Structure formats: C-alpha cells, structure tokens
C-alpha cells in the first residue's frame, strides 16, 4: 500500500504520469509522456489512430506494462499495486466485452461478484446505473439482442457498477449514431454531478474533445499540447482563413512573399492563420495578385489547434505518414496479442 493515498486534506491527483514509455521492439508507441489529471475532471486524450492513445490507456489500466517511467492511478502505482488500481477503476473498451448469452442483469451481477461488491447493495446499485443509461426496462433481455448503442451504454453501466474513482473510456462513442453519442455525453456530465468520479477518455472526434475539461493532444507517441479547449484555441492566437483560388500554389507562394504568412493546401483550398482575420481580407484581395474565388474566416477550432501543433489535420494524419505506419504496426501487435 502506498502511504500517500486517502489523505483527506491534500487530495492527490486522480492520475499522475511521469515520463511514461512503451516500446514494442523497435517501435516506440509512447515516447515519454507527463501529465496529471485532477479529481473530478473530464480529461480527453485526442489524436489520430496510432498516436499512442490506446497504448497509454492500457498502461494506466494495468493491461500493459510500461517500458519506462511511472504512473499512479487513484494513488496507486500501475505496476507495483496493480490490484489496488484495478479495484478503483472502471473500464469501457473500444471492443465489446459483454457476454451476449447472458442478460444485462446477469452481466452486471457477475461483474459485481468479480469485484467483490457487497451482495446487499448490488440490486440498488444495479438499478441506479441501469436507469442512468436507460436500460432498466431491458435488464432481463439477452445482450446479443441489443443494438450496438445499447451494448455500449450497458458497458458504461457495468463499468460504474463498483463505483470506480476513475472511469476509463476508450473511444466510447466510436461507431455510434449521433443520438447515442449525445446521450453518452449526457451520462458523462451527469456522472460528474452525482458521483465523485474522474473521467479519462480517448477520442478522435474533435467536437467531443470540446466537451472535456482539459485535453491532451497526442501525436506519434508524444503529448504535443495540453490545456483546456478554450486555452488551446486561444493559443493558436489567430483566425483561420480558408480561400479558394485559381492557382493554389501561386497563392501559397504569394502569401509567403507578400505577407510573410505560412499557408498550407488542404482539400482544394488554401488555409492559413492570421490575427484579426476580417480586417486582413481587404488587404488580401488588394495585394495577393492571384484571383480568389471565395474566402472564409473563422475562429480557430480544435482541428486547427491540432494542425498548428502537428502540421496536419487529424484526418490527413490518419490517412498517411508515420501515424499510419504506426497504426499498421499496432494492428499487427494487437492482432497477435488478441
């Protein structure tokens, strides 16, 4: 047992990570990440597939051993106090882990028994978590008859059965319809109101990352930025200008020569960042020297934050480049280990 837990005064962070690393042979999936997650926080891990998010979450959940560094979850070391960590965390994976031949109720009951939840509290707690995810009426149904969204909601309910201090959600909304996605977000916010719980989630949906208290942007095994969504957006410090031109290459060259701006081509448009975008537009038309077909000025989004830190959009990062290679390696690794 570690001595620094349960101190009522100084509340230790829910998650404390120092120089955490994981290599699979030659491949460094996670290259020394540092961060802390405060209690009660909704913390998002954002990045393209293969950025190392799942590897990091697996280390925090004691499912993978770090090759370097350390991590404390709920005050316990993920390597030396594995079982103490497991007692205090709830997990919802990308892939389903329910027994389809059992009913929803039986799945939750088995979970409670495995975790040693006192039998007398189980029925009340079960009702509470099932009602939260709107499955109380369906508790007697076999899980294999449930839709994908219902299963994911049931997984969340099960992850909460034993009142974990930290709930890990690995891509909880992946592949779900918008309605289920928004209800899952409603539970997350409800949980923060009702339970004393910290939520750690990974996502590669930008719009969902906005709903987190703080987000860490991960790219190629490293954290490239960590702050509140607002601060990250403000940190870009400029408006996003998207123009369509007759000749994108000439426009990029002219932006560099005339205004000293760095621009990039994405999806048949030129994108660059400039302070006070609206006031810049008249100058743009007057001085660029390349015919412009359309202009769009917007406040920066998290996608822009991602781009400003990694030099690429999250979608491009997934389609090409090292992250892609990394992802294939990860698929091979996980496939081999599954």
């Amino acid at each position, binding site marked *: 047992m570690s001595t620094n837990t349960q101190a009522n005064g100084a509340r230790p962070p829910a998650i404390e990570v120092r120089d955490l690393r994981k290599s699979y042979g030659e491949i460094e999936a996670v290259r020394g990440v540092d961060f802390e997650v405060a209690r009660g926080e909704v913390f998002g891990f954002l990045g393209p597939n293969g950025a190392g998010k799942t590897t990091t979450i697996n280390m925090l959940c004691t499912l993978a051993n770090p090759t370097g560094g350390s991590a404390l979850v709920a005050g316990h070391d993920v390597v030396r106090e594995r079982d*103490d960590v497991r007692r205090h965390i709830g997990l919802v994976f990308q892939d*389903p882990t329910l027994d389809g*031949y059992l009913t929803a109720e039986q799945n939750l009951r088995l979970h409670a*028994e*495995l975790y*040693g939840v006192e039998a007398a509290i189980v029925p009340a*707690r079960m009702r509470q978590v099932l009602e939260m995810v709107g499955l109380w009426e369906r508790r007697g149904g076999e899980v294999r008859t449930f839709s994908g969204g219902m299963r994911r909601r049931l997984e969340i309910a099960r992850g909460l059965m034993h009142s974990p201090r930290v709930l890990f959600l690995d891509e909880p909304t992946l592949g779900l319809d918008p309605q289920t996605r928004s209800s899952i977000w409603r539970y997350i916010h409800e949980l923060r109101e009702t339970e004393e719980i910290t939520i750690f989630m990974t996502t590669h949906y930008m719009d969902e990352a906005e709903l987190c208290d703080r987000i860490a942007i991960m790219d190629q095994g490293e954290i490239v930025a960590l702050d509140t969504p607002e601060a990250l957006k403000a940190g870009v410090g400029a408006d996003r200008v998207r123009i369509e031109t007759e000749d994108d290459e000439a426009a990029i060259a002219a932006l560099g020569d005339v205004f000293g701006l760095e621009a990039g081509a994405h999806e048949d448009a030129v994108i660059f960042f400039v302070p006070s975008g609206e006031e810049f537009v008249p100058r743009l038309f007057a001085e660029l020297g390349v015919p412009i077909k359309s202009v769009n000025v917007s406040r920066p989004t998290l996608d822009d934050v991602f781009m400003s830190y990694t030099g690429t959009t999250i979608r491009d990062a997934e389609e090409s480049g090292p992250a892609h290679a990394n992802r294939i390696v990860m698929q091979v690794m996980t496939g081999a280990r599954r």
Partner: protein
Amino acid sequence: MTSTAVPAEVIRVRVPPRSFRGELRAIKTVWKREMIRFGKDRLRIVTALVQPLLFLFVLGNGLEQLSSASTHGVELKTFIYPGILCVAVLFTAMFQGASIIWDREFGFLREMMVAPVRRSSIVIGKCLGGATVASLQGAILICLAGAVDVPYEPALILGIFALQLLLAFTITAFGVMVAARMKQMQSFMGVMQMIVMPMFFISGALFPVANLPGWLAFLNRLDPLTYAVDPMRRLVFNHLDVSAAAKAALDPGVTWWGWHVPALLEAFVVLALGLVMLGVAIWEFSATE
C-alpha cells in the same frame, strides 16, 4: 467523504482489497457463468448425447454379431460402456475448455482479466465449470447404465461418477491449456482432429488393452484417456457376473512392463496430469500482457 456532498440517493459501493475469500468468490463467479450458459443451451445437452448413444447402441449392437464368439457371453455394449462414457466426457470437456477461445473472441475474457482477482482464480473457475458441465453430461449416460446391463449398484455408480468427474476436470484443463494462445475456433477444431480423435481410438475405449501390437500398446500407455477408461472398466467388471475367461479377455488391466497398474494409481495419473495442465494453463494466462 469530502465536504462536496454527494446526493443522498447515490449508492456508493466499495471494492474490498484482495483476499483469499475474494479469490474463492471469483472462482465461484466464473463457475456460475458456465452454469448459466449451460442452462441456456439445452439443445447442446441433447446433441452432445447423440454420438455416445450411436456408439453404444448402434455400434454396440451391430458389431455384436461379429464379436459374440470372443466376448465370452458379455455383450459388446456392456464392454464398451465405460469407454464410451469416457469419450463422451472427453469431447464435452474439451469443448468446455475451448470455449475460452470464444470468451476471447467475444471479449468477455477481457472483462474477467481486468478484474482485481488473480488470473489463476479465473482459470480454476473455468476448469471447474467445464468439469461440472462435462460430468453432468456423463451423469446422463450413467443413468442409462441399466440399458447396457450394468447394474445400478451405489458403490459402482459412485465410483464411475467420481472417475468421470476427475476425467472431466483433467480434460477441461487440457482444453484450456491448448486454447490459451488460440484466437480462432477453427484452429482448435484442427487440434481436435490431431489430438482428441487419436486419444479416443488409442485409449482402449473400444478394445481390450492386452495383446496389442507393440507400437499400439506403447501409444496406448502414453494416452491419458487410457488411465480413465481402464479403472472404470475394472469397476464395471467387478460388479458383473461374468466368467473368469471373459474377465481375463475383456478386462486385462493396464500393465507397465508386465506390472499391473493398480486402479488407484491410474486415477492418480489422471489427477496429476490434470493438475499439471491446470498449472500450465494458469502460467499461460498469467504470462500474457
């Protein structure tokens, strides 16, 4: 509790630290799941009986016509009864062990692996669950003893039940051990063909184990199933009213270099193998990830 009070209606749950009792509870939980699933799959209880019944009554009665001269008045189906019982248990137990592949494929294995309990508790629970299911299957065949002229004597029935329970446990452990690293049921089917069918044929389930050609006798003594079939057959023959010649021909007993292996030692061989395979299975699951 902190000053930021949680609404009263929220039910807080506490997960106790790991303990021996907790491990026993985990074993029971995993075992219970096997029972629930078995109860839901009643069709399988019936389908799994088809093969042993075919062997016992169709093959037993059919081949009787060829062999009545050499079975010294003992019916062939009575002779093969212990063997068929063991084989029925063998197949069911093997599949019970292999069901861990499905647990892996459909994800539930992961739910068990991340629980704050030892991996060994999960493997033990799985093996005990499989053994229970397979021996329930065996129990149905035990009920049919009278139909093949094996008497319903309590000592005999109890002995048969104990032996097949032991076998069920060992084979489930074997199945889990083999399936530990497998990702697909298809690979396991290959193993069934490669290992389980030869085990069945070589074990002496369908023939007496004396006067075999040297190579077959050698393989027979290596086959774990031999050590379950033989003591069960001895038990049955001890309770039959047959001539000495029939007993010598049909129930010669397993020998090691001419030494008659006692039935108790045979049962111990099965138990020891089961424990070793359970150990390997636990090691395999503890070593992953």
